[in-house]
């Protein structure tokens, strides 16, 4: 396959180099599709190589790297899903165990949760549009604008969530008060911490667009963060349904 010829990358620290070195070894055993022979589906679209936006042959090396890295990141996301799933199970089992502590429903502000939900959904959409800018646009402007809006929405979400937590604490809804509250504080803030670190990662990637420009490493990193971001929105759908709306059922 002529497309497999390796071109040395300018930055020796790039993750992609690791895969290049392996290209003659175990990595070469895996059936790979050369860029020029990429199979197409009946509708003329590309075959999907990993979750999220696929860059396509126009991006050359970056799409080769993404095909491995983003899939690997997806494996990691699924292990994260198991952690969240078990915390959901714990919460469902514990949610009525309020003991002498307060009931959960009066501690929650559904209107605030609704706004948080809308914020996160909007940020998922804007991250999608950022990914499309990355794929189709020749300049970085659209990418930066959409990533900036996504970051802003993420920060608004975190601000609202922290405000909710503060209100809960003021009403005595602290983790050590009851089993139900312990389960709540184990589950919901873990999602918040994920969003926090995803936002820090987003800031770092935005900074890198100015520092390094849009090189292959950065492109693949953005695709990975997109997968994390959309995944966190999926977890939030579970949280608002099971924890917040579920408290009223």
């Amino acid at each position, binding site marked *: 396959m002529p497309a497999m010829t390796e071109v040395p990358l300018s930055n020796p620290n790039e993750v992609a180099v690791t895969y290049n070195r392996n290209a003659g070894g175990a990595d070469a055993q895996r059936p790979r599709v050369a860029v020029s022979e990429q199979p197409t589906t009946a509708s003329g679209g590309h075959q999907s190589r990993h*979750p999220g936006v696929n860059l396509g042959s*126009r991006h050359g090396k970056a799409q080769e790297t993404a095909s491995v890295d983003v899939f690997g990141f997806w494996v990691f996301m699924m292990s994260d899903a198991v952690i969240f799933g078990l915390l959901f199970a714990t919460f469902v089992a514990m949610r009525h165990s309020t003991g002498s502590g307060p009931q959960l429903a009066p501690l929650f502000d559904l209107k605030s949760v609704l706004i948080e939900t809308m914020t996160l959904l909007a940020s998922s*959409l804007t991250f999608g549009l950022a990914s499309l800018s990355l794929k189709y646009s020749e300049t970085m402007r659209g990418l930066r604008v959409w990533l900036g809006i996504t970051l802003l929405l993420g920060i608004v979400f975190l601000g609202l969530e922290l405000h909710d937590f503060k209100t809960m604490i003021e009403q005595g809804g602290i983790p050590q008060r009851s089993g139900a509250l312990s389960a709540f504080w184990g589950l919901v803030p873990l999602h918040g911490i994920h969003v926090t670190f995803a936002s820090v990662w987003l800031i770092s990637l935005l900074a890198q667009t100015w520092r390094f420009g849009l090189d292959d490493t950065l492109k693949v990193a953005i695709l990975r963060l997109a997968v994390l971001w959309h995944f966190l929105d*999926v977890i939030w759908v579970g949280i608002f*349904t099971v924890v*917040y709306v579920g408290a009223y*059922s």
Partner: protein
Amino acid sequence: MSADAQNSPTQLQRDLRKERRSYMIGAVVSLVLTLPVFYAAMTGVTGRPLAIGAGLAALLQITVHLHYFLHLRIKGQTREDLHLVVFTLLILILMGGGTVWILFNLSSRM
């Protein structure tokens, strides 16, 4: 389709429009699956109807997110992205479902 045809400006424009529409559809459908659930909970729907309605809406919305935002498809993937989701689901049903089952059983015997 050759690589050149795939990357011609008109084809790229068409692909962009198609993918952008996919995100828009995902967002709108998610909205439709979210707002009624909150409306019901805020206007005093409780108990089993709320639990079943909200649960179904959430399952649908998660499917919508996986399809329109994470682009997981039943056909046309070169890697086993979807198999991974299904396997994770199996693990969760065993471990999560088992946890809930056993704890409720214990609770009802106490």
